[in-house]
């Protein structure tokens, strides 16, 4: 009886499939974007979940509180881009980029355009940084373009026109550039981009036999303690997909 009832349904599905009417706008999207369509972050587990990395031609975000590992993920993204032979740009709003950390993260510094902002006053610094971001995006040719707004005061963020990120999204659309904002909270809210929400927990350890390590006993820790790394918890927010799992990554101190 059941088979008898399903037969017309199967017939209907076959007819729709033959006329290519069995698809919706969502299902016609490619199931898995190619590696060229995404800028890999260089973190294997994260790239696996992101299906290759952060989408090119879109505005993505790395968001979190202080010491949540935003800069670690950002440097990893830039390092992966320069390893692929691409060039990257960093708009450093408050001039807080640490060159030694970038070198330790294996960033090819010759392929990085570092634009150093002037920190004060914050409103003017953000305005100049956004101008610089637009210039870099309009010039084109960059694999990854990032703007660091991590330490921008909340008042300055609120003062930004709501069309700012829409314009940035329009500029980057259709290009091979993955544009990334680093901030304390979601700002861009792009429909095609991704948001990486980070949370970090510092880890201290006591290396054995290291004569150069601390001389005194630290608070709650024994002698020889040092900051060994940060345990990162990454949650991916995508307007197109539901990703509930948290990804655990460890960042080491080098």
């Amino acid at each position, binding site marked *: 009886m059941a088979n008898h009832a399903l037969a017309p349904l199967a017939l209907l599905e076959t007819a729709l499939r033959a006329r290519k009417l069995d698809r919706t706008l969502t299902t016609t999207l490619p199931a898995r974007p190619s590696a060229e369509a995404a800028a890999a972050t260089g973190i294997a587990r994260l790239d696996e979940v992101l299906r290759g990395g952060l989408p090119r031609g879109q505005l993505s975000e790395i968001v979190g*509180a202080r010491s949540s590992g935003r800069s670690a993920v950002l440097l990893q993204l830039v390092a992966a881009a320069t390893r692929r032979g691409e060039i990257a740009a960093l708009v450093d709003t408050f001039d807080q980029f640490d060159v030694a950390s970038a070198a330790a993260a294996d960033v090819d510094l010759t*392929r990085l355009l570092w634009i150093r902002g002037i920190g004060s006053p914050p409103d003017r610094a953000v305005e100049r940084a956004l101008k610089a971001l637009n210039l870099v995006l309009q010039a084109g040719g960059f694999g990854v373009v990032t703007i660091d707004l991590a330490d921008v005061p909340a008042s300055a963020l609120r003062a930004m026109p709501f069309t700012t990120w829409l314009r940035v999204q329009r500029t980057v659309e259709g290009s091979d550039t993955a544009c990334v904002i680093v901030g304390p909270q979601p700002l861009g809210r792009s429909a095609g981009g991704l948001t990486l929400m980070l949370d970090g927990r510092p880890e201290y350890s006591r290396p054995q036999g290291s004569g150069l390590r601390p001389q005194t006993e630290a608070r709650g*820790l024994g002698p020889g303690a040092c900051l060994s790394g940060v345990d990162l918890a990454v949650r991916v927010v995508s307007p197109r997909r539901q990703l509930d799992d948290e990804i655990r990554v460890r960042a080491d101190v080098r």
Partner: protein
Amino acid sequence: MFGALYLVDGSADALLEVAREVTPRFEICGRGDLALDLAGLTRLLGHPHALARELRRSAAARGLHVAIAMAGTCTAARLLARHAGRVVTAAAAPIVVAPGAEAAVVAPLPLALVADIEEPSTLAPSNALPHDRTVAPSHDLLSTFRRWGLQTLGDLAALPADAVATRLGTDGLRWHRLAEGRDLRPLRPAVAEERFEQALDLEWPIEGLEPLSFVLSRLLEPLAAHLERRGRGAAVLHLRLHLVTRAVHERSLELPAPMRDARTLRTLLLLDLESHPAPAAIDRVVVAVDPTPARVLQFSLLQRPLPSPEQLSTLTARLTAVMGEGRCGSPMVADSWRPGAFEMKPFSPTPNLQAPTSTSRTPTVALRRFRQPVSARVRTNEGTPVHVAIDRRGLDGGCVERCAGPWRTSGDWWKNDPPVGGGVVGVGSCRAWDRDEWDVTLGDGATYRIHRDRATGAWFVEGIYD
């Protein structure tokens, strides 16, 4: 028909003028040694003898003592002119050889002449007098030929060419052909030095960048076309603005790569003038470039193309206009132990010749560094920080949850400057530092790097681990 001028006495520059009066196609074979292409000049100046007389008259008018020879090949003309310049008296008439008779005419000449025209390096240095030049008697082949008993060019030309080539290789064959008065290569005419410059006198003085933009376009477009015709690019761009105050406002832009795109050059000049404007109205504009061979680009099918130097130059100039001088470029790790030391260099990425790698790596903890350390008030218990209060809005202090340290670092103490609290980090700083560093995690979960200056006992926040 070719001619050769060999300077015996006088100025080599004046000899160039003599050659230019007759033909624009001449090769400078050495100082005071010119080879002239005289093809087609007989219709203009008459018989070759008349041409030779004209050359002689022109040289004499400049006070030059020159040996002149004309022949069907450049080699024969040069050999004869050299021989005449050394051996024959100054009053000797120009030598004119009918085409086809070159081998016979050069046959009695000494073999050493070939060594002289074969090796330009045997010529005397440019500041030496022409009569100081000597034949190269120590040439290996010349010694060999002398051992064989050969004295003149005719002796060598009489030998079978294949036998000479078998024994002496291609060098021997070259000498054999030269001894016959044959040319080994076409004449390479000297190209006159060109000036790449455009100027415009304005009827009315102009002020501001917008009207100047149109003037620059008008000047740069023919300049770019001229550069393109000559296969050249601009290495340095000079702009001279003559002002109504009779002053001259000059700007020079050193370009990172040879370029000749008029729009790019105009944009670069305008961006430079935005930050260095002319102090008065302009009544004359002069644009000049230092030319250099143009770039030859080979793109790859397999690699992502980099932006062109024109694009990068324009981008860098625009960014500099927004952010300030020296605030964009590629960072470099400085060869120093100073915390936070770095250097900047112009951003000029090169194509990646190695295969791109996409290996995943473990992330590294990064420091967000305060270029000027932020002062802090730290409460300690037996030398260990227990509470941090940071003197900057937006940075929350608090109780220390966990900490590690201290790491003692010092440097530049051998210099005379006394240690200064906080120790300015970054470019150009050369003050001594001596401090104890701590990593502290506060109650809000943020981990800071703080340090205590050992000279003053003051505490500073150096950065945030992120």
